[in-house]
């Protein structure tokens, strides 16, 4: 009997991992550099449950409002990703770039590039350095689309202001691990969508806003607009974002050591917010009551919820452990996504 139950639970786990992967992979393979999130927004809207009515505000944020009354709990994940913007089209046809968000520049040097337009993406390459500089960090990167003049580049459809990334792919690794670019914060978006799909709306104790925000990587701008709009009425905010983990052979082990595969993480202290200890305890109690794996830790980075704190709103951010942040090979464990989605559902229904 116990064995049969274990087999059934294992089968259910497989189904949940499978659904988590299906949602996550579609989000990861959508492109959306900060300020140009439209493809991700469209994917989010397509993956929402059919009953969910969404609205898009002037900042580009997607809102899903549930429940009645005042004082919403806001649960927010960001849609944007790091990348570049076309800053200049040079006389030799190469493109000068401006970074959007913070990352290690050398990871893009001498790699394939994609210039994102309203229509088809334009392929190109991030040019290798030509200076003979043999240090790790390259000079300012440029992109070639194969043109040798400004007019040639423009004739291919390149315009100043377009965004640039490199091609990306969701790839499943051994066990329940997966890799790709922009898991930060498509994992958060996926967790919100998975929670919405299983949510019992009759159980909500407060109104809840599921918010998919824009321009987080360049200064929490989308969430900031939403925070100002709601003002002091917000009951509590939960940023659902990356817990950058030191679970890696290259990192110092003095903090952020929460392990991949061990469940969601309460991001209790980061560079933008501190969760009051009593709220961390409440979150731990909610997780324990539902048998959800929860780790508690501290890491670096800022989160969208911190834009609400100036209105007297407590930010209780939650995340999942991520290796190799802001690189082309961010790495996650799908078990943590399942855990995080369950925790979000529990927070919405029970707290």
């Amino acid at each position: 009997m116990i064995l049969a139950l274990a087999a059934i639970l294992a089968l259910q786990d497989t189904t949940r991992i499978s659904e988590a992967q299906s949602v996550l992979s579609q989000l990861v393979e959508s492109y959306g550099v900060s300020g140009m999130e439209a493809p991700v927004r469209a994917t989010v809207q397509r993956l929402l449950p059919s009953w969910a009515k969404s609205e898009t505000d002037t900042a580009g944020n997607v809102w899903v409002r549930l429940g009645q009354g005042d004082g919403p709990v806001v649960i927010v994940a960001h849609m944007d990703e790091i990348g570049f913007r076309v800053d200049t089209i040079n006389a030799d046809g190469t493109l000068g770039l401006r970074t959007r968000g913070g990352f290690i520049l050398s990871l893009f040097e001498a790699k394939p590039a994609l210039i994102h337009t309203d229509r088809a993406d334009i392929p190109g390459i991030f040019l290798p350095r030509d200076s003979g500089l043999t240090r790790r960090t390259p000079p300012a990167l440029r992109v070639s689309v194969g043109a040798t003049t400004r007019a040639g580049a423009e004739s291919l459809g390149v315009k100043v202001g377009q965004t640039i990334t490199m091609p990306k792919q969701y790839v499943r690794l051994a066990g329940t691990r997966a890799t790709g670019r922009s898991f930060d914060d498509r994992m958060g978006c996926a967790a919100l969508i998975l929670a919405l799909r299983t949510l019992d709306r009759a159980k909500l104790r407060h109104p809840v806003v599921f918010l998919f925000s824009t321009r987080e990587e360049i200064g929490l701008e989308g969430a900031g607009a939403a925070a100002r709009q709601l003002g002091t009425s917000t009951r509590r905010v939960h940023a659902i974002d990356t817990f950058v983990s030191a679970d890696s052979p290259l990192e110092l082990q003095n903090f952020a050591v929460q392990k991949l595969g061990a469940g969601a993480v309460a991001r209790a202290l980061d560079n933008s917010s501190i969760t009051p200890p009593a709220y961390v305890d409440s979150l731990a109690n909610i997780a324990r009551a539902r048998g959800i794996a929860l780790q508690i830790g501290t890491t670096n980075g800022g989160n969208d919820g911190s834009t609400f704190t100036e209105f007297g709103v407590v930010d209780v951010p939650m995340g999942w452990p991520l290796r190799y942040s802001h690189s082309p090979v961010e790495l996650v464990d799908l078990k943590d996504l399942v855990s995080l989605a369950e925790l979000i559902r529990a927070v919405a229904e029970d707290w």
Partner: protein
Amino acid sequence: MTMLQAVKNQRRRSKSNGGGRSVAVDRRICLLTVSTAAFAFLTAPLAAQTADSLAVRFSAMTAVTGYEQAMTDSLLVLLPGSSRDRLGNVTLALGRGAPKRVIYCNLDEIGYAVGNITDDGYITLRRVGGGARLSPLFDQQLEGHRVTVFGRRGAVPGVVAVRSTHLTRGRPTGNEAPFTVDNAYVDVGAASRDEVLALGISLLTPVSLAKRPQRYGNGLLAAPNAGRRAACAALAAAALSKPRVRGTVVVAFTVQSLYADTAGLKTIVHLQGPFTEARMVTVPSKFPETTVETVGLKDVADVTADIVKWIGGSQ
């Protein structure tokens, strides 16, 4: 026994029934292990194997020097009548009689092999090929990128670890030296050595950057080793075009050009020579030894046409 005697004995053995049987067995193995790319070759009509399409397909393949078998498997399927010698070179004899000439391309590449597996499931690497003349930035192309580990049970995706941007904040980075292979930890998602071994990965398993050829601009192709692959594509396309042949021409795809002082080519000379003339096929490229080494597909077509002329006896 002198080297000449050894070469003569080798040639006698290869002409014997035993040698023929060995080749037949090799073929069966290669048919069993044929890659998806090779399957595409089998199912596509030969007329469709243009130099362009072959350049893109070859650029997606991996042939770490000394570990070229997967790519040579595909070549054997692509080129009816071709055979593979014991070192791994693939050759195809066209025509008959004198003069006897050889035209070849180097298909191998600088890559990596598994050097160690840690208790917690990370794979460390040693470079294969390269040497002192290699750019000090060569290994840096691995950092924070996807790799393919060619295990005995199939290709296994992995990534090369990189420090998280967020966790470097506030710590001095300065004017750091480039990333080297000594700092490469490959993460395949395993949590222990046993999990790595279960994937068919062991010491010496070849490893390369994941290949994603990128076409861009007006007929440009960017990929690791694009120049070498384009040269082999031009040679294969010329051989498949049923060219007029003057005398005998041995079309050769050589292995280990980057190791042991071009062991592959020397093997062909010793086994199938002497030749009155030898030509190495090259295609001009930009950004060599980078992930975006770039060739012009028109150049590939021009080289193909030139090879066809050369095989026919024109200069």
